[in-house]
């Protein structure tokens, strides 16, 4: 019987987080041991990871991470937070209220920096009818907003940030984590889905204002189930634009995927062949949008096999 975090009270969660070996959470294919003595970070973890399975203390851990106050007087004057990995602190501290975003960014860094058993792209992945929709794009493209909108309309979340490709099968491996939204996207998605419960809204981060909401239960229930490549869509939000989905050549799509890969160089030719196989198995498009409702409708039709070349 797998115990989930939701079965622990907030005080039990805080107790596990504040002492070794920490709270061990399964996040898709990875297990993270998280430690933090900070109540606000513990509350966010309790809210946003509530549906995640707990791993017993003798289980294997991929990452042992922590969020703490740095030593010294800054503990008391303009307190900061720092991210720890196996006792090391690879990043500069951030302002004290940014503990949970720092944990998320740190966990992302662990995955794309250390998990070379997968080819990893910067991009969101969703699934519908067994086929994966890959949205490779840098920050600021509207990828996360589009991903957040789609996952409430028939698409399963595999990841809003990191696309994991299995070298052996070419499948997309789920790594569902809390969904991060920034700035105006927070209000846009709040209006679109009023029932969403966000964690704390953190202002003045390096990315502006950020807020997270929990991955849907459907994503966690199928976190062990990969998806076959279906579509590669290069998204671009542009204010006032029409909703426009246009085919793009597979070779050009491959170049975009390579540009958005974290560890492509490590794989060498195998990485090239993996991306070539991925675009070979996918329908590839560019997508420009400003209206999320139209985008949701268009992607539903895409999943039903009827949207190529659609301009609404």
């Amino acid at each position, binding site marked *: 019987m797998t115990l989930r975090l939701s079965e622990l009270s907030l005080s039990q969660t805080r107790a596990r987080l504040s002492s070794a070996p920490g709270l061990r959470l399964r996040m898709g294919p990875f297990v993270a041991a998280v430690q933090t003595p900070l109540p606000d970070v513990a509350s966010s973890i309790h809210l946003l990871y509530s549906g995640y399975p707990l791993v017993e203390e003798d289980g294997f851990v991929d990452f042992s991470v922590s969020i703490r106050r740095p030593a010294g007087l800054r503990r008391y004057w303009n307190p900061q937070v720092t991210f720890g990995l196996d006792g090391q602190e690879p990043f500069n501290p951030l302002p004290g209220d940014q503990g949970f975003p720092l944990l998320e960014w740190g966990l992302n860094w662990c995955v794309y920096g250390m998990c070379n058993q997968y080819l990893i792209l910067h991009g969101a992945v969703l699934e519908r009818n067994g086929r994966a929709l890959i949205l490779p794009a840098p920050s600021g493209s509207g990828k996360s907003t589009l991903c957040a909108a789609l996952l409430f309309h028939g698409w399963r979340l595999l990841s809003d940030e990191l696309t994991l490709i299995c070298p052996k099968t070419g499948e997309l491996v789920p790594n569902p984590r809390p969904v991060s939204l920034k700035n105006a996207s927070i209000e846009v998605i709040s209006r679109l889905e009023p029932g969403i419960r966000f964690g704390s809204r953190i202002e003045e981060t390096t990315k502006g204002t950020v807020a997270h909401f929990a991955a849907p239960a459907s994503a966690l229930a199928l976190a062990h189930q990969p998806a076959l490549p279906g579509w590669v869509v290069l998204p671009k939000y542009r204010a006032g634009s029409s909703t426009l989905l246009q085919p793009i050549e597979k*070779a050009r799509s491959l170049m975009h995927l390579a540009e958005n890969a974290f560890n492509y160089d490590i794989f060498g030719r195998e990485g090239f062949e993996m991306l*070539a196989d991925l675009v*070979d198995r996918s329908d590839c498009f560019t997508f420009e949008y400003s209206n999320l409702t139209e985008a949701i409708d268009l992607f539903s039709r895409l999943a039903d096999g009827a949207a190529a070349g659609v301009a609404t």
Partner: protein
Amino acid sequence: MSRFSTSPGLAIRSWPGESTAAVFVDDTVSTHLVNEAAAALLELAAVQTVTIEEVSASLFAAGQPVDSSSTDIGGDLQLIDETIIGLVAAGLLRRVE
């Protein structure tokens, strides 16, 4: 007359009906987007050495404007690089004799 072959360790992936192809170079661990004429040339040079005339004929046949009097195949590819699609790197071919 000089003959050329592809650099060793070149992988080319192209798809029917598309105007571009992707090329991977093992030595430099680099990926390039090439037009279909360049892809055809590289695929030809991968299986046999080619002369500049054969290259020119190949490019002309594909409708690419190339100075056939040139003996610098790298320069021709650079011409494509800068003026046509901007994505073919010189150095994908090497002089072998």
